[in-house]
């Protein structure tokens, strides 16, 4: 009986871990798609026509501060995405709360 319980418990843990990771992957995958759609054109492409070259976002969360000098926290990045900063446009109204969450999840993967 205890073995059965142990097996059931292990199966549950494996299932949760598997689905949990899959969910995490899809969040980041969606974040990656959003990044390509909304961010990459400026942050990944040097554009001599722009007044200021937007910074690359690799390692964004490795530093203590964002390129703007604000703390490199999820809340600050969320604020930056929604309100814009400097010449970066605001995405308020164009991204849902889930979109912003997934985008930030993806930004965390950029090492």
């Amino acid at each position, binding site marked *: 009986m205890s073995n059965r319980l142990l097996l059931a418990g292990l199966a549950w843990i494996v299932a949760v871990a598997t689905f949990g990771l899959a969910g995490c992957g899809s969040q980041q995958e969606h974040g990656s798609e959003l990044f390509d759609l909304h961010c990459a*054109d400026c942050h990944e*492409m040097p*554009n001599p*026509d722009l007044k200021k070259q937007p910074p690359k976002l690799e390692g964004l969360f490795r530093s203590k501060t964002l390129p703007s000098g604000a703390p490199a926290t999820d809340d600050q990045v969320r604020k930056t995405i929604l309100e*814009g900063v400097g010449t970066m*446009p605001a995405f308020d109204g164009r991204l849902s709360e889930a979109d912003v969450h997934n985008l930030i999840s993806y930004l965390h993967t950029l090492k």
Partner: protein
Amino acid sequence: MRWWKTIGLVLAAFFAGCQSQTKQYSLRGQVMAKDEAASEFTVKHDDIPGFMAAMTMPYKVKDPQAIKDVQPGDKITADVISVRGGQEYWLQSVRITDQSGRQTAKPAVKHALNVGDVAPDIPMVNQDGKQIHFSDFRGKSVLITFVYTRCPVPAFCPRLSSQFARIHEDLAKTPADYEKTHLLTISFDPKYDTAPILRKYGLAYLDNHAEGFGHWDFASSDPGDMRRIADAFGLEYFEGDNQISHSMDIVLLTPEGKIAKYWSTEWTAAELETALRQQAQSSNQHQGTRG
């Protein structure tokens, strides 16, 4: 070992291809005008998901045979090729689907006001919350463009504002021209682009030098007045899901408030700056002659 090298090369090529970010979209529409010298069609097209809402706008065409074969009024399908994040785009694989409209096509962009007409005195509110009119700038040559601050397409509004910033900085080096010229950026998005938003946006392009607003205003008007401005200058814009598709237009006004010139796609900051300076200087000369 060779097998792994081959796989590596294929993967490298695949990822290199991804990084070039060439995007392709399907276009369906009617050619409203053709400029053979500029290799350009102006196309009134359906919605192009992921690239552009339904609107009328010019596209470069690289196939000389297509430029020769297609006539204004033809309905076409084509691929829009967009590279470097939309910094460059053109039509490819153009196919005529219907020639019956060849005789009925009319010019795509009609400016209600012609060169020489006086700009309408429609009220706007600037970045300081102050009401302004085109007539407030009499005595100065005025370069006007149209953007919205949330525009995320680097080849559109960010480019226009960046180039205006360069013109502003250059003019500041020549006080005589600086005093006789003015820049005006008008928003397509009056609901979002209120005075505080316009101020924040303007400061970003003025390197936080607020005194620059004395030479470069950022303004919006109420939605009805914005339509009147658009109709006067022949602007096209369509509000979508929190995004605005719009034509890229620049207008130069004489110191008397008359329209001196229009630009749409083919311009450089240097060309605009030269035209603005020349307009101001020629007006100074006229004043000198009269005086």
